[in-house]
């Protein structure tokens, strides 16, 4: 009926208005805490110019590399690819230790278990156990602090926490308005939270026990492809299709830095911090990796080498190296070789 249709529209419009005004109020509340311009970078010493080169290239995948993770032993790496394979590499020798073929092709997610004895990928474990069930694609996964629980993010808009042994769903996290593309667990000292990023341009911080969203941030202009906690757990960085990376301060509850340049117009697919949190490494769809000075907001270095999009990037657990995976079918490791003048 015509009148019912009108009421339906009014309710939608009034909901939208309410949302806008609440967002405005939230901004006001956050702005009250903004008592200094971001000065913390000004007096920081500039890091010396340095050079990074690809030291190892891991070849073996037959198609785009979509995801990678380091083992806690700081040596082994797991990677997954559109060729349906998951490979475990020894990063020192570049030898392949294991290769598993998955029943599907786009293996978008893979993660090393804390014990180093198992890996999770796509929808199954290395021991061929099916754990997580989402109604749409799995975009990211991470073990929690033990091999016993796994956190997943999905194209169905939710994240979920699973018990590995029983395959049981322990908690689900609803709140994103579109596909969730990435997640990262808070460093264990900071408690049971994790952050997720999605196609709704939102980054959301969750309490793992209650399933509640604690904080959310909507400052990006496009999909958030990658989120990573800052080493102390008090902040996190994000990389987005809007070609920027951003830093969010969790205690001040706001975005505090944007890492961007006019010349960078392609999306950032993957971000990670160096050990101290001073540097932010970001892989982009224009095949490069940009290294940002987290405090000053400026770019410290730009790394070339990949011949297609950089899809995944992780700094090793002890911070001595980082590894990037690309649509060019390879993984490359780099580290600091020469420290030039300070």
């Amino acid at each position, binding site marked *: 009926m015509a009148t019912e249709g009108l009421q339906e529209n009014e309710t939608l419009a009034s909901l939208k208005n309410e949302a806008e005004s*609440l967002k405005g109020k939230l901004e006001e509340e956050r702005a009250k805490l903004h008592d200094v311009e971001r000065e913390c970078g000004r007096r920081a010493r500039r890091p010396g110019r340095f050079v990074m080169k690809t030291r*190892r290239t891991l070849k073996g995948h037959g198609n785009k590399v979509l995801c990678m993770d380091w083992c806690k032993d700081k040596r082994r790496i797991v990677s997954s690819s559109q060729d349906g394979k998951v490979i475990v590499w020894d*990063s020192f020798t570049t030898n392949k230790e294991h290769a598993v073929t998955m029943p599907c092709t786009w293996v978008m997610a893979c993660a090393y278990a804390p014990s180093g004895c198992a890996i999770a990928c796509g929808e199954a474990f290395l021991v061929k156990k099916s754990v997580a069930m989402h*109604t749409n694609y799995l975009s990211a996964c991470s073990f929690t602090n033990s091999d016993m629980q796994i956190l997943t993010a999905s194209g169905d808009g939710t994240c979920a926490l699973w018990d590995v042994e029983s395959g049981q769903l322990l908690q689900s996290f609803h709140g994103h*308005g579109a596909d969730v593309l990435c997640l990262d667990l808070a460093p264990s000292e900071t408690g049971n939270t994790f952050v997720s990023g999605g196609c709704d341009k939102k980054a959301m911080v969750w309490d793992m026990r209650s399933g509640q969203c604690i904080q959310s941030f909507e400052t990006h202009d496009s999909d958030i492809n990658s989120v990573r906690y800052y080493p102390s757990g008090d*902040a996190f960085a994000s990389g987005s299709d809007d070609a920027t990376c951003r830093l969010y301060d969790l205690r001040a509850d706001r975005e505090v830095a944007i890492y961007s340049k006019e010349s960078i117009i392609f999306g950032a697919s993957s971000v990670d911090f160096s050990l*101290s*949190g001073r540097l932010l490494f970001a892989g982009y769809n224009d095949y490069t990796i940009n290294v940002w000075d987290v405090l000053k907001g400026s770019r410290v270095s730009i790394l070339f080498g990949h011949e297609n999009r950089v899809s995944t990037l992780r700094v090793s657990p002890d911070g001595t190296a980082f590894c990037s995976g690309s649509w060019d079918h390879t993984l490359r490791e780099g580290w600091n070789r020469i420290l030039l003048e300070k």
Partner: protein
Amino acid sequence: MAQDMTEKELLKMELDQLKKEVKNERQMISKTGKEIKEYIESMVGEDPLLKGIPEDKNPFKEKGGCTIS
């Protein structure tokens, strides 16, 4: 699931979340920003990607060639 929700349901979910967040406790940036900077400065000396690694300790260094004499 987000994909199954109507626009109205999505908006309601967003509203509920926003109402909660407006009440969150927040700290001053002058304090939190300073703490982030202090954390970085305390760890920078240990950051291998910033200060470099001496070649002899580098597990990734290229293996030298051998010469047979």
